[in-house]
């Protein structure tokens, strides 16, 4: 995955969301339609055009206290509307590492 941290021009080619890390503990969060954040990808606001994406990112970045490092990332919308991560990087962010942690949670 080319790191989205190198995201410069905003142009999306499919359904997307905005994700970031929560400032106080770093946990992965998703921008929600009611202008808040959720730890569940299923709550994410979905955008489908580059203009919408830009607007969603702008309001997300504006919340500098709550979130850090906001960026746009792809999602897949499954039959029935279920939101799934659009690439491996987002899959790992949303589901956790792909390995067994040395100490089971």
């Amino acid at each position, binding site marked *: 995955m080319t790191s989205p941290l190198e995201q410069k021009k905003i142009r999306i080619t499919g359904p997307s969301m905005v994700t970031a890390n929560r*400032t106080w503990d770093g*946990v992965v969060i998703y921008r929600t339609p009611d202008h808040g954040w959720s730890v569940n990808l299923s709550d994410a606001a979905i955008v489908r055009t580059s203009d919408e994406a830009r607007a969603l990112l702008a309001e997300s970045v504006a919340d500098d*206290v709550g979130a850090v490092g906001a960026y746009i990332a792809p999602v897949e919308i499954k039959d029935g509307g279920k939101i799934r991560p659009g690439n*491996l990087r987002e899959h790992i962010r949303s589901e956790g*590492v*792909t390995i067994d942690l040395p100490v089971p949670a």
Partner: protein
Amino acid sequence: MYAYDELDRTIINERVSEFRDQVKRRLSGELTEDEFKMLRLQNGVYLQLHAYMFRVAIPYGTLSSKQLRRLAHVARRYDRGYGHFTTRQNIQFNWIKLAELPDALSDLADVGIHAMQTSGNNTRNVTSDQWAGVAPDEIEDPRIWSELIRQYTTLHPEFSFLPRKFKFAITASAHDRAAIKVHDIGLRLHKNAEGETGFEVLVGGGLGRTPFIAKTIKPFVPGRDLLSYIEAILRVYNQYGRRDNIYKARIKILVHELGIEKFAQEVEDEWLQMRDSALTLDDEVVEDIRSRFSYPVYEKLPHMPEELKKAAHDPYFEAWRKNSVAPHKVTGYAIVTLSLKPVGGPPGDATADQMDAIADLADKYSFGEIRVGHEQNLALPHVARRDLPALWRELDKIGVATPNVNLVSDIIACPGLDYCSLANARSIPIAQELTRRFANHDTANLIGRLHVNISGCINACGHHHVGHIGILGVEKNGEEFYQITIGGRADENAVVGTLIGPAVPYGEVADVVEDIVEAYLALRARPDELFIDTVKRLGVEPFRERVYATR
């Protein structure tokens, strides 16, 4: 061990309270992320995929049992019960909460541990041979000089805002265990024809996007002139270094662009003007630092104690002893490497329970001292040979006696896409799969010394360029692919490896490595011709053929 002085303790404690205040202001919104980012980086705090990551320095890889217990405490109390030892004698915690970081830093400060200069464009942790002070072939303890440089550069204004990060490594042995040739400045302690001790100075090594092997700019700099000479290098770098382009800002690029002769000349000119300045090191200063390193009071012990003779009948013990036990400068003692590379485990990770147990074993068997090496393993530096069998049983119980040190499953790997926000591809699962493929100790022994190094992106934290087999994660159309190089090495004969062909997908990496190893076994001239020597003799072509003939 090294005893910090009052000044160090004051600096560390001030840093903690400063950072506590900065975190508070960040969480209240008084500081924006833009303002805060540099402050957190100065304290070793990065943002990763799932959380903040906290990098803590282990200067020249030396830890006391008390310090290791405190690292275990931080892992347990503030993280998820484990830590990751890195290739630069640091430990990283992957799940730290920003709000709790000041407490973690404060707990570490109590035992003289800090995270200063573990990130940012300054002089980073000055690394050294993990066998410093105990290796039989060493000129003198290189940590004295590491410590001098650490003190001199820590918070030094000129070194705090360099064009880019800056890394030193020092060795005092003929065999380089500190990878000095892939550092911005590498120092090799040696004796000149007159029998005086001094430094061969190498500059411009580095990995990352553009790998370079460091070149010698001065074969001999006497110890008293070391700091003025380093200052001269840094001045030339500060004067010419490219601040405009992050990819060109490392000293290696400057050395490459100016040419080594011109660079050496510039440094020489600069140095001649200042060599007799206040930076000249008095013997007293060096002696003062030397006196802060304490060495154990060794006993007079036999080389072949009864305990060892008896244990020699146990093939499992013998396999471990031959692999993980190295000669010590004092008769009757040994250096023991603890493998953090269990079959199927993430390279370099240790759990809090393991760290506590290792700290206890260090107290019992190694005068309370532990070392951290760049290969992401630990070592107990002062073990009486009579204690080896007992120690081995204890190490085995906690899973750090895998007899694979320097073998194919002793893999260096960066966190990769499982943790790292810059990654293209995963590193850890590739390493895990390889350790499973080569789990059979007899096979691994038959193959002999072979270093596999894996990085999840071009930043090269996993040293892939200098792996005998190097694996680099790249991305192709959203899929994980891996470029494979062979023939690299990081020791005194360091070279950058050569690409063998097109990148291969995730699922094929372990097969390719197996093919390369099989090709080597078929091609080697003698059973003791190392992989790296076979590649040197034959070049990459026969390996390329073998790997791509069927792909």
